[in-house]
């Protein structure tokens, strides 16, 4: 049944249809104002579900799509889905508001922009609220597609197209792999419904397909969420307009992979592989992203790598949180905290990263550049933007009193706790987790400081800027102000999220831990006492400050890596190499020479048939043949002699006449095998064909008329011999192994009694099987019409017709 929930999910798609009309018919009003209503209404609509999910209830609405294949458009709202839905609509609303001021009504093709954006929003809602894997996959691919369109919004720029193609290739590769994983899940459980798969999760852990399904699905999640080494598309996606970067590439789309990992945790998390892979890739991405971000000079480049790194952090927390499932209850279960931290940081990241992207957009918009080497001293010119940047960056660096501090402390707690987990080698190798996390946090601190101080402090360099910088209009500042307010609100009062949003989402990720009527205990607070996490944070700040101040001295370390080993270089080489190799491969066998193609066809024919003939033991000879009369022997001798003449003759004319002789001999065979009708037809047809051959011969161009010997080629000889032998062998086998009695006995009686004719062949042709004759007449008609057309219809001289 189609419910309001379904309509809410597809509402952006419906609205997208009307965007071009509004853009054309009401050019005076910025199209964004109309679009703004959609996420706003949806946000309010989804807020209504908060009381439902926080009281541990879920809403499921089924609408049959392809019921015969078990594919239903099942909308399922639980804590996790609702959290994402609120993020998508909430940040979507702010991004649309920001884009109204960011994109010019006069210069930009707004109809394209908002159509793509609404498409994306609807697809994203579909991803997070679908319970059916195939529907989820469908929406997943629409997010890839609309992201591709949005990245290449300024399609006249080379780099936009490059970035769009790159992100498309990588995310669609992951998407396909995910589909394979989904199908494997279906093969194991017999259902596409996520809830039902979770319910039968215990039965499939020892299934053969369990690990392949996990790996393929994780590949999809990692490519979408820009995990190492698939993160390379995200920095290149920064060619998109800034509202797109803020929305897709920080708050929503890149979290689709996180969503998938969280959503399928109850299915896979009991295995050690899941824990190691998810947490391992997460922590590597965290380190690599933060390490690479320091190298960047473009504001959005820094933010892109920082997004990569923060996503890795969330993912590693989700992986570590899987440890909790190995305990039956919540009592003394340290590892639940990791999941809490993951969800909390997911929200925090959306707030501060969205505001930072918008800040970068404002700086770009008001100064004309995003290069931190040209920026500086904007603090006094753009005080509000500066405040936004400080709050966002300090939150990202994990400094008190912002929300990033809280989630970073919880992250450290999770990483330290996991070292005491007593399974899957976590207690030995697990010690790497807190160390890498700590080092990565130092780099996070450094690039966060770069973001603020290199942009806003120091000396202003007006000569390097194209325009005179000034503060942005209020409308543009509104969205980032709302987001940084949320940063502060969530920082000081994190517990307003605790039981409304975080706890229900945890219940979706770790359902097996909750008994009847229980709920997770979520309490986020600033002061833990003098714990190891606090010392780690202090270490991050201390060492980070030192490293930031001495950045100039050690930045050369980035040049140590040879550029031929970077992932981007490998990607470029792979793409170029695949193109080169495939074109070489195609060029090697697609030679445009019919002789070669015939060689392939005949060789395949021989190999396949001979293989089957002997592999299936189908070859047989029995002696039951009719006696050979002297006439047949003589005619066969004529046939063979003429065929040899045709093959070895020097002259084409001789070959043509030889063919004629062959045809006449065959007519004679028809005579002695008692087929008068065939003999008649064969004689006439042979005469006509010889005449036509002569016609062709006469019109050969003078230049190549020189008569030469047939060139002898060993390959051709072998192939033709093989074809002849194969056909002979098959003929002998077929003749020796007749399975049924022939139906020929039916015709002699029936042709007179039933059809009233004495000529059996003709009765068969026009009476018993007249349908074939009809179509053969059609063949002749088509051939005649074709010949006429080819001769008469010359496009060059159409007037002659």
């Amino acid at each position: 049944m189609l419910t309001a929930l379904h309509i809410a999910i597809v509402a952006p798609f419906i609205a997208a249809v009307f965007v071009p009309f509004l853009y054309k018919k009401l050019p005076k009003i910025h199209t964004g104002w109309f679009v703004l209503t959609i996420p706003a209404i949806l946000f309010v609509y989804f807020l209504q579900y908060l009381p439902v999910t926080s009281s541990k209830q879920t809403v499921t609405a089924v609408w049959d799509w392809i019921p015969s294949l078990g594919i239903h458009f099942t909308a399922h709202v639980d804590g996790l889905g609702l959290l994402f839905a609120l993020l998508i609509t909430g940040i979507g609303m702010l991004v649309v508001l920001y884009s109204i001021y960011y994109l010019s009504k006069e210069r930009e093709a707004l109809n394209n922009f908002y159509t793509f954006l609404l498409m994306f929003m609807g697809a994203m809602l579909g991803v997070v609220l679908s319970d059916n894997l195939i529907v989820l996959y469908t929406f997943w691919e629409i997010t890839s597609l609309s992201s591709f369109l949005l990245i290449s919004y300024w399609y006249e720029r080379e780099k936009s197209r490059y970035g769009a193609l790159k992100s498309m290739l990588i995310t669609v590769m992951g998407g396909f792999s995910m589909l394979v994983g989904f199908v494997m899940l279906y093969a194991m459980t017999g259902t596409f419904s996520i809830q039902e798969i979770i319910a039968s999760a215990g039965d499939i852990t020892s299934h053969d397909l369990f690990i392949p399904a996990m790996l393929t699905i994780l590949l999809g999640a990692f490519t979408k969420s820009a995990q190492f080494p698939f993160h390379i598309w995200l920095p290149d996606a920064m060619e998109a307009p800034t509202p797109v970067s803020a929305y897709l590439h920080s708050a929503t789309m890149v979290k689709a992979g996180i969503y998938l990992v969280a959503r399928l945790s109850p299915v896979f998390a009991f295995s050690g592989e899941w824990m190691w892979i998810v947490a391992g890739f997460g922590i590597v991405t965290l380190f690599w992203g933060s390490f690479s971000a320091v190298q960047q000079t473009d504001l959005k480049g820094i933010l892109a790598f920082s997004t990569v790194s923060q996503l890795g952090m969330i993912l590693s927390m989700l992986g570590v949180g899987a440890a909790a499932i190995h305990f039956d209850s919540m009592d003394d279960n340290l590892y639940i905290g990791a999941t809490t931290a993951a969800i909390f940081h997911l929200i925090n990241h959306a707030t501060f990263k969205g505001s930072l992207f918008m800040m970068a957009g404002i700086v770009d918009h008001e100064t004309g550049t995003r290069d931190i080497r040209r920026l500086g001293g904007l603090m006094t010119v753009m005080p509000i933007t500066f405040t936004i940047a400080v709050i966002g960056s300090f939150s990202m660096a994990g400094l008190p009193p912002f929300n990033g501090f809280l989630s970073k402390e919880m992250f450290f707690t999770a990483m330290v706790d996991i070292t005491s987990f007593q399974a899957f080698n976590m207690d030995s190798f697990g010690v790497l987790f807190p160390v890498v996390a700590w080092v990565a946090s130092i780099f996070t601190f450094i690039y966060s400081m770069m973001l603020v101080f290199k942009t806003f402090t120091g000396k202003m360099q007006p000569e390097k800027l194209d325009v005179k910088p000034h503060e942005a209009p209020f409308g543009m500042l509104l969205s980032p102000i709302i987001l940084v307010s949320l940063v502060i609100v969530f920082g000081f009062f994190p517990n307003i999220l605790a039981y409304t949003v975080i706890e229900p989402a945890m219940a979706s990720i770790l359902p097996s831990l909750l008994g009847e009527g229980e709920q997770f205990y979520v309490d986020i607070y600033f002061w833990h006492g003098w714990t190891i996490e606090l010392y780690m944070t202090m270490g991050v700040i201390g060492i980070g400050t030192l490293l930031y101040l001495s950045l100039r001295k050690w930045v050369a370390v980035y040049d140590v890596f040879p550029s031929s080993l970077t992932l981007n270089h490998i990607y470029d080489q792979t793409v170029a190499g695949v193109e080169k190799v495939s074109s070489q491969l195609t060029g090697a066998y697609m030679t445009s020479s019919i002789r070669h193609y015939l060689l392939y066809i005949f060789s395949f024919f021989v190999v396949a048939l001979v293989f089957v003939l002997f592999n299936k033991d189908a070859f047989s000879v029995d002696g039951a043949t009719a006696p050979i009369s002297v006439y047949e022997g003589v005619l066969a001798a004529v046939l063979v002699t003429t065929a040899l003449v045709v093959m070895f003759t020097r002259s084409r004319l001789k070959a043509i006449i030889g063919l004629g002789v062959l045809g006449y001999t065959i007519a004679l065979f028809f005579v002695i095998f008692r087929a008068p009708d065939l003999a008649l037809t064969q004689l006439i047809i042979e005469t006509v064909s010889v005449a036509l051959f002569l016609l062709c011969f006469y019109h050969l161009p003078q230049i190549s008329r020189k008569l030469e010997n047939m060139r002898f080629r060993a390959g051709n000889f072998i192939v033709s011999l093989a074809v002849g032998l194969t056909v002979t062998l098959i003929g002998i086998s077929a003749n020796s192994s007749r399975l049924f009695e022939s139906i020929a006995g039916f015709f002699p009686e029936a042709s007179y009694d039933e059809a009233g004719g004495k000529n059996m062949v003709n009765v068969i042709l026009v009476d018993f099987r007249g349908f074939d004759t009809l179509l053969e007449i059609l063949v002749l008609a088509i051939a005649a019409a074709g010949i006429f057309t080819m001769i008469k219809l010359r496009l060059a001289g159409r007037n002659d017709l």
Partner: protein
Amino acid sequence: MTDLLLQISAVILAVSIFIAVYRVAKGPSMPDRVIALDNIGINLISLVAVVSLILETTAFLEVMLLLGILAFIGTVAFSKFIEKGVVIERKRD
């Protein structure tokens, strides 16, 4: 007796066809080959007639007639081709 005679004549006809085929293959000039082909056609008529007698059927009488027509038309067409280079002349208007 009749059977033996028929078989002997079939062999003779076959041998004459072989000789004509040799001429077709070897024939130094084009008219040689055309004449040999015509010869083969006529021999074929005889051969079909003999074979009809051996098989004791009248079903191949049309074949003989047709062969006669085709041999004639074929020879005329070849001759015209050798003489004029074309078989069917374009209408002059």
